[in-house]
């Protein structure tokens, strides 16, 4: 019941908001915020009750939903999903807090959309029935589309439509692949079900794995996004309101990487092995290309958006290394990216609210004007670069260790990506914060207020915590990752021993 509560409490909150008076904006904001805080509290109970030594699903719930078609309401979390659920419920209240003064029109609809979005996102990470997963996966589109399209920037409609059409195009083929799996599984065993367990245990002919893998991979690659499917991302991230950007970067992109981990690898181990080199190449291109494009962006938000392409390239590299370090690093890096890029979007939003510009050239000398902002910005920037002692380092290090065991050339190229990341982030930081004040408008910018600090401090704490003592975070995933890798390798059998450059 706990998982159901975490998933649907936000929906209940959204329904409660429906009956509240739309003019009483303060109450709407408070109710939504408290609903999301309580949801986070419930998800902490999940963490406390989670047994990290046990692999496999915990907190499982299984009820028939559409028994006529073998569709069940089947939920559960392992270490991998647990971290992502926590990330989602952690970021949601911060997003609502960040929107406190930024969203001033149609507040009621905004809070409802955010809460419904939270339900769908948590649902994606907990669903253990392919139909249920797909429902949550698609249900997430509408609220996000509305958030970008209604409260976004000047080109919001274009960005919103592009976002939803790209994602739908990807998921359309995944739907067919899910149906194909259903009938394949049913015709071999006689039991037609969308349940994850039996479908994951089914061993498919390599010739069948290829098209199904590609159908799933396309949906996930668009979501991650991997080069060359990333072109929706800069538009959507830049046009979305801050809260939307944080959710997009923090959680939505992780749905893609999570999908690779939960579905592509275990369901199609052979095809994954065959396509791993291609994924590696695309990941490396993403890392380098994202970094280079970030470097030349004049717009802060766009820079952060493109940096996501680069960071997610690292995650993909780690996941497809398919060894303990790589996968654990990849999962941790999903969380890290959610924290640091989420915080970057929050900071960009805060400074935009003051200066009404996001152009790097419009800033300079902030250190003397807004010292608190600049200090927080520095920590987050360093976290994003991967400075030892902060969270980014741990994840990237593990990924590189994992990738190094599989392919040295790729590991070396990826390391170069870290250097580029330092270049574009530090150069940006330098132009925005250091130097003399070049614009009169900047001279009178107010520093962060208490509410904004309350939004950022939790993230900062986690950035340092994971950087200094990552064990609790890696620990919860260890058993699940070991089981997953063992499962994939055993299922792939000796034929897939050619895990490429092993």
């Amino acid at each position, binding site marked *: 019941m706990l998982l159901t509560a975490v998933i649907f409490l936000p929906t209940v909150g959204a329904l409660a908001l429906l009956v509240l008076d739309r003019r009483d904006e303060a109450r709407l904001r408070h109710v939504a915020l408290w609903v999301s805080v309580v949801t986070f509290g419930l998800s902490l109970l999940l963490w406390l009750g989670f047994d990290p030594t046990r692999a496999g699903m915990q907190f499982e719930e299984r009820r028939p939903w559409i*028994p006529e078609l073998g569709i069940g309401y089947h939920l559960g979390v392992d270490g991998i999903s647990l971290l992502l659920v926590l990330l989602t419920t952690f970021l949601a209240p911060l997003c609502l807090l960040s929107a406190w003064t930024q969203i001033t029109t149609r507040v009621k609809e905004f809070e409802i959309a955010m809460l419904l979005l939270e339900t769908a996102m948590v649902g994606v990470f907990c669903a253990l029935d392919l139909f249920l997963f797909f429902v949550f996966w698609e*249900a997430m589109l509408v609220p996000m589309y509305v958030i970008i399209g209604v409260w976004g920037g000047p080109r919001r409609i274009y960005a919103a439509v592009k976002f939803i059409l790209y994602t739908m195009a990807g998921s359309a083929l995944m739907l067919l692949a899910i149906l194909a799996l259903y009938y394949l599984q049913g015709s071999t065993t006689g039991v037609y079900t969308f349940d994850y367990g039996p479908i994951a245990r089914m061993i498919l002919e390599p010739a069948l794995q290829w098209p199904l893998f590609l159908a799933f991979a396309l949906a996930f690659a668009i979501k991650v996004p991997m080069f060359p499917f990333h072109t929706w991302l800069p538009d959507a991230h830049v046009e979305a309101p801050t809260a939307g950007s944080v959710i997009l970067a923090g959680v939505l992109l992780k749905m893609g990487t999570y999908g690779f981990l939960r579905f592509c690898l275990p369901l199609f181990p052979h095809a994954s092995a065959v396509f791993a080199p291609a994924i590696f190449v695309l990941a490396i291109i993403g890392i380098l290309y994202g970094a280079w494009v970030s470097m030349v962006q004049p717009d802060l938000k766009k820079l952060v958006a493109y940096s996501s392409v680069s960071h997610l390239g690292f995650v993909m590299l780690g996941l497809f290394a398919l060894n303990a370090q790589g996968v654990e690093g990849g999962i941790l890096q999903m969380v890290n990216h959610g924290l640091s890029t989420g915080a970057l979007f929050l900071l960009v939003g805060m400074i935009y609210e003051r200066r009404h510009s996001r152009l790097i050239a419009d800033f300079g000398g902030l250190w003397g004007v807004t010292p608190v902002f600049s200090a927080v910005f520095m920590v987050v920037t360093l976290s994003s670069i991967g400075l030892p002692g902060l969270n980014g380092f741990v994840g990237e290090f593990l990924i590189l260790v994992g990738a190094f065991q599989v392919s040295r050339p790729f590991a070396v190229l990826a390391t170069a990506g870290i250097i580029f990341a330092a270049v574009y982030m530090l150069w940006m930081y330098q132009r925005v914060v250091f130097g003399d004040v070049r614009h009169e408008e900047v001279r009178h910018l107010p520093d962060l207020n208490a509410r904004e600090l309350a939004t950022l401090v939790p993230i900062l704490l986690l950035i340092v915590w994971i950087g200094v003592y990552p064990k609790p975070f890696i620990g919860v995933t260890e058993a699940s990752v070991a089981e997953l890798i063992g499962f994939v390798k055993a299922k792939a059998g000796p034929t897939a021993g050619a895990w490429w450059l092993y």
Partner: protein
Amino acid sequence: MGFTLPGLAWSVLAPVLIVTGAAVCCLLLDLVPPLDRKSHLAVTGLVGLAGALVVSAILWGQPPVRFQRMVALDDFALFFNAIFCVTTALVLLLSVGYVRRQGIEAGEYYALVLFATVGMMLMASGLDLLVIFLGLELMSLSLYVLAGFFRTRASGNEAAMKYFLLGAFASGFFLYGIALLYGATGTTSLDRLGAALAAPEAARDPLILAGVALLLVGFGFKTSAVPFHQWAPDVYEGAPTAVAALIATGSKAAAFAGLLRVLVTMRVLQADWATYVWLAAVLTMTVGNVIALVQGNLKRMLAYSSVAHVGYMLVGIAAGPERGAPAVVFYLVVYSFATVGAFGVILLLEREGVEAVNLDAYGGLGDRHPVLALALTIFLLSLIGLPPTAGFVGKFYLFGAAIRGQLFALAVIAVLNSVVAAYYYLRLIVYMYMRDPEGPEVRSALTPAAWVALAVAVWGTLHLGLLPGPAFAWAQRAVAPLLW
């Protein structure tokens, strides 16, 4: 003077008779006061439809009753009766205020709507090609008149004329097909036709193949499958919107009912017709969606979108009746709720006394009429096929049938089509929620009756999206009599 009445099981015709009775009552009550208000006729119609629905529900699951190889009241017919009764009832609820506002209130309107429904019911229960043809004609003739109810408008006359001329051609094709089949086999009864076709030499008889092809043309016209769809946009645009809703849902459902019965009879020829249905499905989906992309008039857009939805349903038929038929009948329910609902919202919105059918009238609707905008959004999401609406489940079921029938290419084309379709539905949502109002104010004429209709349509769309299980089971059972 010995005259023996053939032993008629009256219950076979019970739902049809009830609705016919209601239609006749409408004609009679039209002559008694109050003469300036006709809403009591709508009430009469609703009572009749409710009665037919209740009788159908009572008979549901009973052993099928047949009459002389002509008419059957099996679960298939009952399921379709329920579809017709509910959609017609929704249309009546929406019509009451609409026809009065448009100045076309007349007693015949309600009677004709009910007679059209009787025709649909006959089509679904016909076991003989002639009965199906009779039902088709009764339905079509009523709808031709209804389509031209805007007598003083050029577009109304154009709609009626076009619908009538093309419809008459289609009826001719259909009848000619029946004649050819009769010539080849000596029967028009579906049972005997099926037996005659089972003979090995029948499958290569040119008369039979031509007859089947002509029947498919007739059904293609009534379902507005490409290339027989050209009438749809003009008719939807010129006809009263409530009538357009009936043409888009009830008449299509009736045509699909007849099509399913006929195609199941022709199962031995499946190899022959499956290819054409495959091709028709691809063309219908693609042409419908692509042309819908550029429509600025919502009624035309919904016309092309309804063409596209017919294409999706043809995907189910192409997958073979055993696999596809339950998905098709389920989708008809889903599609009818969303389509009647969408037309319902459109007919409630007025700008300067004229129906707001142009896209730009919908700018900022989310602010001005939040309830109507939300309802329309739910219907559009269902037509796109996004969860948690019924459209998603319906498409899932249909495309699942295609996958099961190993029609992978068709399934891929279908899902890609639904992505294309998302664009034009979303554009309307963009207008409602993301753009500012422009131009003169758009008023809503939301009456309590229309409120009920929209609420039922929203309920159906969401309920079938969240808990489709029982409806799936009913759909399975509905097609069981076909697959004896």
